[in-house]
């Protein structure tokens, strides 16, 4: 057993510890009148159902079909996203980053886990992990390779380190062969990873086969 195995092993056994400790803190904060468990329930439910990458996908799909919306999105993504009634409200300083054949955008938060959760939901574990946070800024192509993504030779990569309260949403390129699709069908092609920059949208063919992420 290495020291490393040791920690991995601990981790499992700590989970039930954590459950007890978290419950105790919630009890204390509730008894002291600081929090209302019903509010916590509502937050958890919102995270599990309401907010999520489907919101971002709708923004992207609209930008693909509506040049005027796309222009407004690149000008002020908060305002543009909030103009779509079916997207949950977006706070200040959302910034849309347009991918082109010449430029691929990749978003990271090296210092913690800043993420545009109103449009993408809570960040996945990998986004908050040391491997992603440490490597995205020094070895972005290696990181993309971990996601199975190899960009064309001529494409430059721009990494956005989210060090302040501005938040970044990648506007991926519309996939080939999607000319006939409706806005709703296009939204189905937009993956979470394609809006972070670690993936591309699904192709219409992939979507038919039911590929996910």
């Amino acid at each position, binding site marked *: 057993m290495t020291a490393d195995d040791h920690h991995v092993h601990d*981790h499992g056994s700590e989970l039930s510890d954590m459950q007890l400790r978290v419950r105790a803190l919630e009890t204390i904060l509730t008894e*002291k009148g600081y929090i209302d468990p019903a*509010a916590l329930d509502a937050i958890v439910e919102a*995270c599990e159902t309401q907010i999520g990458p489907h919101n971002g996908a709708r923004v992207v799909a609209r930008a693909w079909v509506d040049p005027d919306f796309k222009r407004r999105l690149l000008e002020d993504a908060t305002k543009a996203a909030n103009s779509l009634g079916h997207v*949950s409200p977006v706070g200040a300083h959302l910034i849309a980053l347009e991918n082109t054949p010449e430029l691929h955008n990749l978003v990271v938060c090296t210092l913690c886990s800043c993420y545009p959760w109103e449009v993408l939901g809570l960040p996945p574990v990998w986004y908050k992990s040391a*491997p992603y946070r440490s490597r995205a800024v020094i070895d972005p192509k290696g990181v993309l390779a971990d996601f199975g993504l190899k960009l064309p030779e001529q494409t430059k990569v721009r990494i956005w380190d989210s060090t302040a309260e501005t938040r970044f949403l990648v506007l991926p390129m519309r996939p080939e062969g999607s000319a006939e699709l409706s806005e709703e069908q296009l939204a189905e092609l937009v993956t979470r990873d394609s809006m972070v920059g670690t993936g591309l949208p699904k192709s219409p063919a992939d979507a038919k086969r039911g590929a996910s992420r």
Partner: protein
Amino acid sequence: MSNTIHDMGGMHGFGPVEPEPDEPVFHEPWEGRVMAMQRAMGYTQLWTIDGGRASMEVLPPVAYLAASYYQRWFLGLEKRVTAHGLVGADEIKAGKSLRPGRRLNRKLTAADVPNTTRRGNFERPAPAPAKFKTGDKVQTRNINPTTHTRLPRYARGKLGTVEAVRGCHVYPDTAALGDHEHAEWLYTVVFTGRELWGEEADPSITVSIEAFEPYLGAA
């Protein structure tokens, strides 16, 4: 503290990124409770997001790295509620409240929740005009404060270009110390990969940070 393990941009050795297929929003129910407690306690306005970050950054490095993400949030939250005198160490130990709570400014109810799924706005009126404009060459300062900052180590003392002026925002370095309103101009500053990582770096890469005005000098 600024140069703690949380500032890991450019470090080697953490291994590959491992995406999890069909990842659930929470892996354990307690993770959701921690996230929700964090939001609910943040709503009291006793600290800003910067105070929250700072309380996780001071975790011992092994604890920081060995803890899972929500464990870190939990440890930070426990630290903050005790540091602010909201909960006693004896109460944490006992696992229950031992005396009445303090009166707080506000308390989040279930009815308020829909409004809190929108992020707060940290933009503030500008006390002075912005020093830099788009296209300006700047050099990031080499600062190493023992308090919170959002200028990562890898981007200190580097030459970059202002790409956008983002308005005037609450300044994390002072907000973490309790001044929740002091604001500074915020810029997107872009660096070449070679400026950050040396002449052997991939020339097709650029990296930007969101830099507050005190982080920058004219180049």
